[in-house]
């Protein structure tokens, strides 16, 4: 595969040819590219979703080398032996995968989108960027639809229960990576899946990922997506679940790395009786800007959604949370909750929180809460009175702050890594403050 420079029509055609795509997929890319060219980048002064996110910091032209394999192999990524299946992507190419034989025999698929095209072409055509996330939503969804790399395809057939969790690892060696994850959990099926995004510390890159989770009737899905990009990676991504009737979904995001990251995280409650939990942690420090926009989109009656986003902000870190509970006129008996908690730890830290309710039905129970505060000195004092040194007590409190969300991540080794990543940030922060927070 040759290297592709620039977000151009030639790149679209070359990428599609290199991936040996069917005509319909190339046509879809080209349609998106045409619209991409006609759509301006979001106006960060007037567009509410972008108002607090300075896109001028991203040099799109310089980053427009579409990631292609550069000789890196899966060895760069830690193997997770507690997952029942893994798929590893390096620079937009599947470099290795394994799946428990019993699951494979039941029809479970864990591979790349392109490898699944021959066997599951119709399923992909039905669900890939059609009704969960649509190309025309904005500049970046169009960019993604035109230039997506070889992404993840995971399918769990009707009624199949996946015990244990699957793990997808995504690594970026440089340039632009547009990783797509299409996760389809059919009626009555069950799946736990974790996606991890990483890059080495010296990598400069742009990531424009989209994760689509389609949960069928009474399906049960636990998903966690964790990004630990290096400090020179910029990201604009979408994660969304489309919940069918009676589906129960938990979508958890860990937003830790990157220089600037803007994620749109959404739950579309499209089937009666569905229930979605949205959970998130973020911990910007050292000049990082981590920005999360969530939507709990209640389209039909009798659904339940619950959101909990926890953010700590270290020195010169900036955190933005904007969450919307949107209740359509038909969505009676909606029960929705939203909570955003922020812990301000660093100097020159800034946190913006905008929890929004838009309610067009009357028979609903919707509420939200948001808080921005510092470590509670009374609790610190209590822990010190039990013999802990001050620094230790503070560390314990910050770690404990994140625990309610981290404990929801289904893979033990990923949980441990998240706890480690949080601990490391606390240590770095404490080190620059003379051991105390």
């Amino acid at each position: 595969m040759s290297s592709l420079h620039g977000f151009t029509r030639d790149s679209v055609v070359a990428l599609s040819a290199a991936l040996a795509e069917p005509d319909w997929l190339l046509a879809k890319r080209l349609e998106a590219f045409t619209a991409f060219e006609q759509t301006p980048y979001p106006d960060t002064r007037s567009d509410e979703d972008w108002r607090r996110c300075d896109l001028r910091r991203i040099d799109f032209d310089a980053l427009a080398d579409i990631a292609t394999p550069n000789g890196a192999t899966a060895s760069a990524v830690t193997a997770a032996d507690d997952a029942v299946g893994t798929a590893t992507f390096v620079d937009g190419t599947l470099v290795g995968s394994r799946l428990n034989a019993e699951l494979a025999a039941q029809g479970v698929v864990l591979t790349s989108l392109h490898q699944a095209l021959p066997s599951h072409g119709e399923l992909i055509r039905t669900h890939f960027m059609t009704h969960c996330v649509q190309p025309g939503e904005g500049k970046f969804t169009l960019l993604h639809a035109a230039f997506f790399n070889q992404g993840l395809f995971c399918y769990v057939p009707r009624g199949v229960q996946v015990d244990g969790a699957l793990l997808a690892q995504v690594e970026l060696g440089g340039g632009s990576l547009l990783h797509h994850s299409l996760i389809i959990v059919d009626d009555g099926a069950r799946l736990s899946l974790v996606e991890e995004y990483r890059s080495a510390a010296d990598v400069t890159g742009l990531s424009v990922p989209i994760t689509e989770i389609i949960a069928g009737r009474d399906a049960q899905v636990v998903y966690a997506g964790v990004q630990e990009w290096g400090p020179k990676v910029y990201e604009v991504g979408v994660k969304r679940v489309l919940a069918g009737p009676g589906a129960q979904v938990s979508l958890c995001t860990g937003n830790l790395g990157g220089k600037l990251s803007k994620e749109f995280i959404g739950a579309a409650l499209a089937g009666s009786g569905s229930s979605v939990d949205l959970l998130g942690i973020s911990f910007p420090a050292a000049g990082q800007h981590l920005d999360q926009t969530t939507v709990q989109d209640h389209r039909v009656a009798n659904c339940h959604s619950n959101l909990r986003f926890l953010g700590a902000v270290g020195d010169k870190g900036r955190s933005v949370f904007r969450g919307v509970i949107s209740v359509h006129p038909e969505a009676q008996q909606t029960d929705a909750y939203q909570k955003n908690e922020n812990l301000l730890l660093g100097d020159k830290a800034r946190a913006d929180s905008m929890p929004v309710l838009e309610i067009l039905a009357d028979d609903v129970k919707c509420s939200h809460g948001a808080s921005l505060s510092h470590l509670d000195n009374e609790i610190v004092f209590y822990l010190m009175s039990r013999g802990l040194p001050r620094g230790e007590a503070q560390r314990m409190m910050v770690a404990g702050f994140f625990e309610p969300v981290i404990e929801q991540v289904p893979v033990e080794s990923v949980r441990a890594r998240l706890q480690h990543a949080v601990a490391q940030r606390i240590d770095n922060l404490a080190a620059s403050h003379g051991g105390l927070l």
Partner: protein
Amino acid sequence: MARPVNAETDQHDELRALRGDYAEKYGFHDDRVNVFETKRGLTEDIVREISAIKDEPAWMLEKRLEGLRHFLATPMPNWGGDLTGINFDEITYYVKASAQAETAWEDVPDDIKRTFDRLGVPEAERSALLGGVGAQYDSEVVYHSLKAQWEEQGVLFLSPEEAVQNHPDLVQEHFGKIIPYADNKFAALNTAVWSGGSFIYVPPGVHVDIPLQAYFRINTANAGQFERTLIIADEGSFVHYVEGCTAPIYSKDSLHSAVVEIVVKRGARVRYSTIQNWSNNVYNLVTKRAVAYADATMEWVDANLGSKLTMKYPAVVMLEPGAHGEVLSIAFAGAGQHQDAGSKMVHAAPNTTSRIISKSISKDGGRSTYRGLCKVYPGCTGVKANVVCDALLLDDKARSDTYPYMEVEEKQVDIGHEASVSRVGEEQLFYLMSRGLDEDAAIGMIVNGFIEPIVKELPMEYAVEMNRLIELQMEGSVG
């Protein structure tokens, strides 16, 4: 003389008597020939004309022209409510109904007096519950009085025009300093064409312990009312200012766009209460802001019941340590109404505190929106701020939105926000009905309970009026 609070039967009779609709109670209009009105539309000539009528000094005209230039250069806001119905060319910007402001009620022209009599304004003054009254009819203040005891202590309660003539230093020091003409399009418009309003100065240490009242009335169709209010509470003083507003129901829309600036100096306290009951064809686009210095307290009590669209976010900018800001807000949106109300709390000094309590009710397709900002600047340690907003939806056509913004740039703070949206609880309703109340009365009782925490903060006269107005709004909410 105060109305006996516990004479419940009297109050019930009164309430029953009041259960007409808005058209009967407030919606009448007087067929009178105005003393003067400007041509429709807004031009530099009109601004100069208004300034000339008021015989203003050059510096005020200059401010007006600056405001006009900014107004013309600024696009309409693209957020909040639907402003497309406003046609700036159709509005009459200045309407004068009476030759001058009177200080004796008897001297006010009869038809105008009748209007305010029907609205119960002088009655309130006669009953000695108020320290002073101002009444504004269209563009001009027609009546002003201040009780002698406050006058003796140096309290000023004037129309801003009088203040410009007699106290130019005070006006120049503060006018447009808290809300500059460039703050927003409607503040610019007000700066250009302002007329009427109140000017209040309370000297150091003076406690005006009964409220000052102003009553605003738009009578002319398609008129704009642009009153300008400036309140200066000097160190350690206290004043409570209460305003009410109504208008007749015309087929064409009117525009009310006030600017209210308040300075609360060290240790002073100002409470500003509004019962906004414009008819449902008034665009109510108001900018209200106070600055609070060390240990000062600013309280906005804001009830929005009328208007077609209200966009109003009373603000407190806390400039020195110990300042406290508070907003208690009620909004009621019925058919065809959009109440886009809220508050801004700007913490610009350490150890400042603020509290916002907002209650909104929507029915018959009405839309109520809470929009608020809590901002903490770097270095403002020890800030505590809390926001609670609750919304009640009375039927399936109503809509409620909540848009709080929290921007915090300092770690040593405690900021909390909670909001809930719900309908009238079936269980509460069932319980009350099982005790013999009909559905109408039961819902009325639940609504009254819902807004009680704010109504109880109003002076008694106004609390009663508030409850009456809610009754009016609730009329026929069942079946």
